[in-house]
């Protein structure tokens, strides 16, 4: 569906050159759901704009949906949908007018356009707003309208630049439910950008981590976390003595010897892949050594850990307040007794 070689974009800003995208090689197969994850200014939008013919590459090449972005831009545009990071619906226009106009821009017959507009309004919970001017909509409604417009032509390949920015978690879930349904119905290939870690983690089957215009990792979220991050198991003991017993036992076992932090106190912290799967074995080992924790907690590896380990920086320090507010949702607590019994 997409094939790029050395895709590069350099902007000139005054006398300075801005290397926004530096030699991206990419292959996306039909039906994939791919997310570009990276901090603000990483080059996500610029990459998408090149793939959608809005910007011409400074060097390198790209074929999108079977056409060359440089030599056959019109063909590319006919085969894709694009939901940009700004508001695609004009503020002075009415909701229904914009949807129909979008249909006519994609050369749909008026009847088809009407039908799809009605369908999308319903699916994206915008019904009742048909006659409202776009500028009177809330941020979330406007974003859903943008998505509806991007779906009017039922594109085989859809690009979404930060699709859920400004939406509440519920709205985001709804939006994704619908996009995924359309994807299943139409067999769409999806390429999106996001700086929401959870969104990339939950939605994408493949995450391309991009930083300073370069792809630094490209795999399924699960694989990325296995390769570049660890789950963290924290065991808390009733007394320091008991914790020391536990540490000794772990140190003596080659599977765990280099996996835990030497730290004084009641807590023992272990970094490991597959934390939930490892926990019973660990508890078993400790039990045998005579140490039984009061509590055990697993914090699953996140894509932020991946990014942190790859770049030394956290994605959460990034820009918007809502990037931080999402919190580390993946933390989960296990009950020790249950865990021990199960093992």
């Amino acid at each position: 569906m997409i094939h790029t070689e050395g895709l590069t974009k350099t902007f000139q800003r005054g006398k300075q050159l801005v290397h926004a995208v530096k030699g991206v090689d990419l292959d996306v197969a039909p039906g994939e759901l791919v997310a570009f994850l990276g901090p603000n200014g990483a080059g996500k939008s610029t990459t998408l704009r090149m793939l959608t013919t809005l910007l011409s590459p400074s060097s390198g090449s790209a074929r999108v949906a079977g056409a060359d972005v440089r030599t056959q831009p019109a063909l590319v545009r006919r085969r894709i949908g694009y939901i940009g990071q700004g508001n695609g619906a004009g503020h002075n226009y009415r909701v229904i007018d914009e949807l129909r106009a979008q249909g006519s821009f994609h050369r749909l017959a008026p009847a088809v356009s009407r039908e799809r507009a009605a369908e999308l309004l319903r699916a994206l919970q915008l019904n009742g707003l048909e006659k409202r001017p776009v500028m009177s909509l809330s941020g979330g409604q406007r974003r859903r309208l943008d998505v509806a417009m991007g779906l009017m032509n039922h594109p085989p390949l859809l690009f979404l630049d930060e699709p859920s920015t400004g939406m509440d978690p519920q709205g985001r879930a709804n939006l994704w439910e619908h996009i995924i349904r359309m994807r299943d119905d139409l067999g769409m290939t999806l390429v999106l950008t996001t700086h929401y870690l959870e969104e990339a983690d939950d939605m994408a089957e493949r995450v391309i981590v991009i930083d300073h215009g370069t792809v630094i990792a490209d795999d399924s979220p699960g694989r990325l976390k296995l390769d570049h991050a660890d789950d963290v198991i924290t065991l808390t003991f009733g007394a320091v003595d008991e914790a020391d017993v536990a540490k000794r036992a772990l140190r003596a076992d080659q599977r765990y010897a280099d996996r835990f932090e030497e730290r004084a106190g009641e807590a023992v912290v272990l970094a490991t892949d597959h934390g939930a799967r490892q926990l019973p074995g660990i508890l078993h080992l400790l039990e045998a050594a005579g140490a039984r924790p009061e509590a055990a907690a697993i914090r699953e590896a996140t894509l932020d850990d991946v990014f942190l380990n790859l770049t030394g920086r956290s994605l959460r320090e990034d820009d918007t307040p809502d990037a931080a507010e999402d919190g580390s949702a993946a933390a989960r607590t296990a009950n020790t007794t249950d865990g021990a019994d199960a093992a």
Partner: protein
Amino acid sequence: MNAQTIEHVHAADEDGTGGRIGRFLSDTRAVFTREIVVVLRDPFSLVFSLLQPLVFLALFAPLLGGMVGGDGIGDASALEWFLPGVIVMICVFGTGMTGSNLQYEMQTGSYERILASPLSRASILTGRALKEFAPLVVQALVITLVAVPLGVTPHLAHVLVGILLLGVFGIGLGALSYALAIATRGKEWMFWTVQQSLTFPLLLLSGMMLPLETGPDWMRTVARFNPLTYIVDAERELFMGTFASSTVLWGAVAAALTCAGGLAVGIRTIRRSAR
């Protein structure tokens, strides 16, 4: 990578709508419709725009008495001489504004969305220019009818041809205004400064408001290189009820050249903005 399949699936959409011209026309209609619906939904501005030429007429007509028999207006009565000028002026003001709405759309994402759609670039320019031009069709007819009791003979077919000619010219001017909006992106004041400082000399140096025949040589020389001069002359001839004249022909040539040149500049500017 199965580009093959995709190529196949989309074989149907390549040429569906009857070739380039057909596609250009339907694209233009799509763009025009999007813009004109906004105008039609706002009756107040519509009525106001119809009144505007009447206000011009009411303010100018009483002053025209002094010009009767003046040099440079030929056989026409002062009003007959002046009327086509007003219509051309409305056209220049109207289509010259084409780019101003774009300024706003470039700040939101809606301009980008339109560029990512399969619309042909020429039709984006033409559709938007025609939206600014559309009210003029009604305005011109209204103003002509109102002038009838004041002693102007209406030549309806000629007036319609005159409007058509202005439409062709207006597309070119609209495309230039659009290009200007892209070039001055994010600097609205610059758009207006350039737009105004080009419009007024263009108008004055076309003999639209006052006859140039009485002006100094240099003015007449400059006017000869101003396409608007030929348009204004052709419109006057048409409103007097003449078809077969070289003046009308030159007006048509000037309109066609402005249209082609404007679209070429417009399309080029859109392409360059992707660099």
